[in-house]
């Protein structure tokens, strides 16, 4: 089963003056279940819009979106919220951690919002933080962590609900080159270890070497 199938997906925004702006135009994309793809394009090309629709943050104007066999094209707000809670992992570009929760709680909050498995979630958070090299930092608040450590906690949070697809939006943009490469190596290792698919949104071509393939997007159109 593919992790993601986009079929003729279109997203149109209506502006304040009544005019329409096409952010994504009849795009088709398939991501296999353990595939890591780089979604590359300049600012404003539509990569974040595509990623947001794949993750159930935005609904498409037209087209079909199927994530791990689940068609979310016509989902309403409540269904999308539940879908994001259970099936998708996110690592955002800027805001990634809840500042009043420590590293471990930033992972267990995913469980609190959803299944509430309690001890099982605690154990899973411990395991994930250990795997990410943060076993001794789990009680640290985000403000006590470095940029790279915060990004690793965010990756841990994205994996907490055991998603079929993880979306990374410019995960290395706030990191220096060396740290960015370390984070990308970590992403690749963790995704491959779990057989989880990932889309890495970036405008940095160097990131693509950590991905299985690259998909370019220009002016809302995908170019394989």
């Amino acid at each position, binding site marked *: 089963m593919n992790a993601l199938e986009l079929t003729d997906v279109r997203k149109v925004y209506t502006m304040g003056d009544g005019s329409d702006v096409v952010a994504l135009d009849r795009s088709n994309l398939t991501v296999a279940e353990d595939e890591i793809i780089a979604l590359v394009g300049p600012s404003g090309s539509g990569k974040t819009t595509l990623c947001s629709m794949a993750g159930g*943050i935005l609904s498409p104007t037209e087209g079909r979106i199927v994530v791990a066999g689940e068609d979310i094209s016509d989902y309403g707000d409540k269904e999308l919220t*539940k879908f994001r809670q259970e099936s998708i992992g996110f690592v*955002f*570009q800027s*805001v990634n951690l*809840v500042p009043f*929760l420590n590293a471990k709680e930033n992972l267990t*909050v995913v469980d609190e919002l959803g299944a509430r498995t309690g001890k099982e979630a605690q154990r899973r958070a411990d395991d994930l933080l250990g795997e990410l090299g943060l076993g001794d930092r789990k009680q640290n608040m985000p403000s006590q962590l470095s940029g790279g450590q915060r990004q690793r906690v965010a990756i841990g949070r994205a994996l907490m609900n055991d998603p079929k697809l993880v979306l990374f939006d410019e995960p290395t943009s706030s990191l220096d080159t060396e740290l960015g490469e370390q984070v990308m190596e970590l992403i690749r290792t963790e995704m491959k270890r779990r057989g989880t698919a990932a889309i890495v949104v970036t405008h940095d071509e160097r990131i693509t070497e950590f991905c299985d393939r690259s998909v370019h997007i220009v002016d809302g159109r995908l170019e394989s």
Partner: protein
Amino acid sequence: MFLALKEMSRAKTRFGLLVAAIALLVFLILFQQSLQNGLITGFVGAIRNQNAPVLVYSVDGQRVIQGSIITPDLEAEVRDVDGLGTVGRLGQGTFTATSTTSSGDSLDATILGYELGDDGQGLGAPSELVDGRYPSGELEAVGSTGGDDAFAVGDTVVLQPGGFEIEIVGVADDIQLNVSPTLFVSYSTWSDAVQSVNPDAGEPLPNVMVAAPAEGVTADQLVTDINDRSLDLDALTRDDAASETPGVAQVQQSFQLIFLLYGLVVPCVTGLFFLIVTLQKADALTLLRAIGAPAKRLVASLLIQVVLMIGGGLVIGTALYFPLTVTGLGGLELRFETGAVLFWSILLLTLGVASSLVAARRVLRIDPIEATTGAGVGA
């Protein structure tokens, strides 16, 4: 609950300050509520807590017992009214006195004289005693409790000048008049007391008539009938006589205004606090929405915090208020008023939750897409 408690535990100073502010306001509200009730009871407790349902003043008295004089003609008019069940005289005077409880220091005591009846509980007697018995004859009194000059059974009160002695045979709560220690004695004892300090005064006239309606007649109907009878009579029910005593309404209005201000300040402080906090943590809320937190869950978290903050303030404010009700304040007896605590708790919780709905609305407006753009709810 998880998010609400975690946030509060990580920002103890911020939330603690809000609890402290609410606690201070709650303390002030409850303290002033008791102060108001203590003041009014001190002023007119003797009217409220005597057993006559109707009091009849002379119009000239302007609803002040001591200022009212019932002449024999007016008394006859009252006694002639249809629907009157029983009627009696009530006299009042203020005396300088010493008592065995005042360690020789003089005090200003109010003495009310009523017609005892067979059992000492004639019209105008205190409704209820907390100790001792009603007067059965001359030179005996029911004394007021409360304040620095509380009487006890067995005390002797000596009026000055003249040395007229009255023994306390019973005590009752909340029977003060004009915020002074008060004695309820037989009408003839009161008359003798007046003449003992002023031998030239002659036989004093009663200040008011106390009355009860005949069977089948209401107190309100009796009041109407008496007032219709003569333009010089001013009959009032017991509650009206207490509340319309000059000064009482003004005291109540002043306190009501203060309570209204408090009632506005608490929700304003709470609402503003949570609106600021919501705007400050907009990014975190947006992130939570993006990773699957239902908006209602975030609003519930906010409301839990509001209830806990106000609840904490209420508990601490009430705890601060309680000791004052044990010790009292000067001559005023302040009571712990459970009804006031419940009333203000419900009101402040309701207003606090209502005021935080502005912040809740902000939370509901969060669009998870803002997590991808870095724009929060306040943007």
